[in-house]
C-alpha cells in the first residue's frame, strides 16, 4: 500500500468532519435506551436492551480485550465476527455500577468489527453480545484491574 497507516489515520480525522460517521450511535435510530443503560444488573440490562437474556455462548464472537488492564480507566476492547445478518454489537461489564457500556447498531452491508475503550471500576467479566438473525450470541472474558507493582 502506497499510503502509510499514519497518513491514513490523519486523513480519516480530516475527513470525518466532512462526512457522517460509518457507525451511527443508537440514539439516532431510536429513543436513547435509557432503561438498558441505567440497569444495575447484567440480566436487567440484557432484558431492557434485547427483550431477552437468553444468550448463547459462541466462539464466533471474537472478543479481544486484555487479561490484565494496563489502565482500568481506558481498556481497549474490540469485537468482530464472521456471522451473517449482524444487527448490533454490545459490550457489558458485569461489575460496573451500570453494566451496559456501549451498543453499536450494524446497518446491513457493514463489516461487523468495532473497537472502543471501556472503563472498569474493578476486576470484572467483560461480555460482548452480538445480535444476528434475531438471536443473541455472547463471549466473555475476565479482565483484571490490579494495583500493580512487584513484577519479577
Amino acid at each position, binding site marked *: 500500500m502506497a499510503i502509510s497507516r499514519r497518513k491514513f489515520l490523519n486523513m480519516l480525522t480530516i475527513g470525518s468532519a466532512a462526512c457522517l460517521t460509518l457507525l451511527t450511535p443508537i440514539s439516532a435510530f431510536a429513543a436513547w435506551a435509557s432503561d438498558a443503560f441505567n440497569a444495575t444488573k447484567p440480566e436487567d440490562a440484557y432484558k431492557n436492551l434485547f427483550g431477552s437474556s437468553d444468550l448463547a455462548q459462541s466462539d464466533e464472537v471474537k472478543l479481544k480485550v486484555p*487479561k*490484565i488492564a*494496563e489502565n482500568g480507566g481506558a481498556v481497549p476492547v474490540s469485537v468482530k465476527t464472521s456471522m451473517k445478518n449482524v444487527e448490533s454489537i454490545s459490550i457489558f461489564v458485569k461489575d460496573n455500577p451500570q453494566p451496559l457500556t456501549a451498543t453499536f447498531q450494524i446497518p446491513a452491508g457493514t463489516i461487523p468489527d468495532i473497537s472502543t475503550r471501556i472503563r472498569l471500576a474493578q476486576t470484572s467479566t467483560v461480555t460482548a453480545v452480538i445480535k444476528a438473525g434475531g438471536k443473541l450470541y455472547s463471549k466473555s472474558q475476565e479482565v483484571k484491574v*490490579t494495583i500493580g507493582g512487584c513484577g*519479577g
Partner: protein
Amino acid sequence: MNRREFNRLLSAGAIAGILPKSSFAFSSIKPNYDLPQKGNARLLHITDCHAQLNPIYFREPNVNIGLNQAFGRTPHVVGEAFLKKNNVTQSSIEAHAFTYLNFNSAAKEYGKIGGFAHLSTLIKSLRSSAGGTENTLLLDGGDTWQGSATAYWSRGKDMVQAANLLGVDVMTGHWEFTYQDEEVFSNVDDFNGEFLAQNIKLTEDALFEGKRSHDEDTGHVFKPYTIKELNGHRIAIIGQAFPYTPVANPKRFIPDWTFGIQNQDLQELVNAIKDEERPDAIIVLSHNGMDVDLKLAAVVTGIDFILGGHTHDGVPIPVVVKNSGGQTVVTNAGSNGKFVGVLDLNLDNGQLKGYEYKLLPVFSNFIEHDAEMTALIAEIRKPHLDTLTEELAVTESLLYRRGNFNGTFDQLICDALRHELNAEISLSPGFRWGTTVLPGQAITFEHVMDQTCITYPETYARDMLGNEIKAILEDVADNLFHPDPFYQQGGDMVRVGGMNYICDPTASFGNRISRMTLDNGKTIDANKYYKVAGWATVGSKAPGKPIWEVVSSYLRNQKVVNITKINSPELRNVKNNPGIVL
C-alpha cells in the same frame, strides 16, 4: 537432559582447554563443559543475568508453590523433590546449582557462579565446538540492562557493551523498559544484535502522533521476529517481551507502548512465518515466565521451542507440551549468569528431526576468564570502585531473596525501612533478582545495589488503613496464585516487615489473607490507621530518599546483621506441596 551421560562426564576428569590451572583445590568434582555438537545447529540461551558482570552467589528458592495444574509440575518443585523429579544426585555439584540444599557449605566448596568474563570463555568454547559463529546463535531473554549499580548509573549502557562483546545475536526484554523510552531506543541502537518483541505495540494515540516504531502499519515498536541462517538451515526467532511490564513496573517511562501476551497475534505471526519464510524451526525467545510459557505452548501451535526466562527457574529437563498442532518444548534458563542453555538442533529438509538440550551451570572457579571481557568490566567499574566496595556491615546470617515470600535480604530491607522511616509496618516488592551474601561476608554497597537498584527507588512513609493493607496483600497474592497463569502478573509476594498474617494460596481472590497482626501480637484493625513505609511505587514517584540510602544508613549503624525473625506468613492448605520446604 541425558543424566546418565552428564553423570559419567562429571566423573570423567580432565576435559576441555577452558579450565583454569588453579581450580581443583576446591573440590574433587568438576563440571563438564566439553559438549560436542549433536545435530547441525546450536542455540545458546542466557536470560535474566540482571547485569551481574562479576561472579556472585545465588541461592535457589525453598518456596516456589504451584497450584492446580502446576502442583508438583516443573518448575514448582524445590529441594529433595527437585532432585528426585530431575534425577539429580544428592550432594552433587548439580544439586548445588539447582537447589538451595546445603547452600552455605556447598557455596564455599564450589565458589561463585556466572560472571561475564567466565561466560565469555564458556560461550566461545560452546560455539567453537559447534563450528563457530556460523553454526551457532547466542540468544538473551532479557533483564540484562538492570540489576547492578553500574547498569543503573550507566542507564544500561555498560550491559549493552558487555552483551556486544559477549556476542549476543538476539534479545528481548523486560527491565530494559524501566529506563525512559528514549534511553531504551538509544540502547537498542547501540546493541549489535537484534532486539525483538512481537507483543509491544504503539498505542493508537502514539501511532497517530508518529512516534518511533519498527513498522507503522502493524504498530510494532520493535522488530517482531528474525530469520537466521545456520549451516544452511533457516531458523525463525520470535521475541516475546514481558507482557505485563506497564502493570508490574511504571508505565510513565514508556507511555506510548502497550504490551500483553497477545497469543492470538503470536498464532497469526507463526502461521505467516511458516507460509512466507519456510523456516526449518520456529523458536520463541520469551520473557513470559515458565507458567505462562507452558500455557502459551498449549494454546498456540507451530512453535518448536519456547526458550524462557523471567521466573529465574533453572530447568534441567525441558517440558514437552502437546497441543493440537503437535508439540512445543518449553525451557527456562535461570538467572544471574548462573546457567547457559545449550540446544542442539538436528534439522533436515525443512524439518526438525531431533534435538538435545542441556542447561549448564556456570561455576566460575572452573572456567578461565576471558581477558578482553575482564578488561571491559574493570574499565566499567573503575570510576565507581570505592563506592561499590564500601563495607557497610558484616552479616552473620545467609542473605538471599528468591522465593515466594520474604527472603532474609528482604527482611533486612523491611527492618531498615521501619527503623529509618520510623514506621510500624514496611512493604517491599517481591522481585526475583538480587544476589546472595554468605554468613561472615561483609555487606558492601554493591550488594545493597544488587537488591535495590531500580529506576523508581524512592521511599515513602504514610498512614494506611488496616483494610487498605489487606487489599494490597490480596491483590499481590492474586497476581501470584491466580489459577490461570495468563492472569499472573509476574512477581513474587510483597514482602512485609513488622506484621504477620495467614495466607491460603488456594483460596479465591479476597480470601487468601487473614489474621493480620503487628509484631507485638495486636490484631490489625481494618478501620485503624498504621504508619507504613515502602519503596518502588509504580503509580507515581514517591517523595522519599532512594531505598539504597535507607538500607546503607541502617547497615552502617548496625555494623553486624543477624536476621532472627522473618515476617513470612503462616501458610494454609499447602502442606504436601512439593514446591515448599520450611
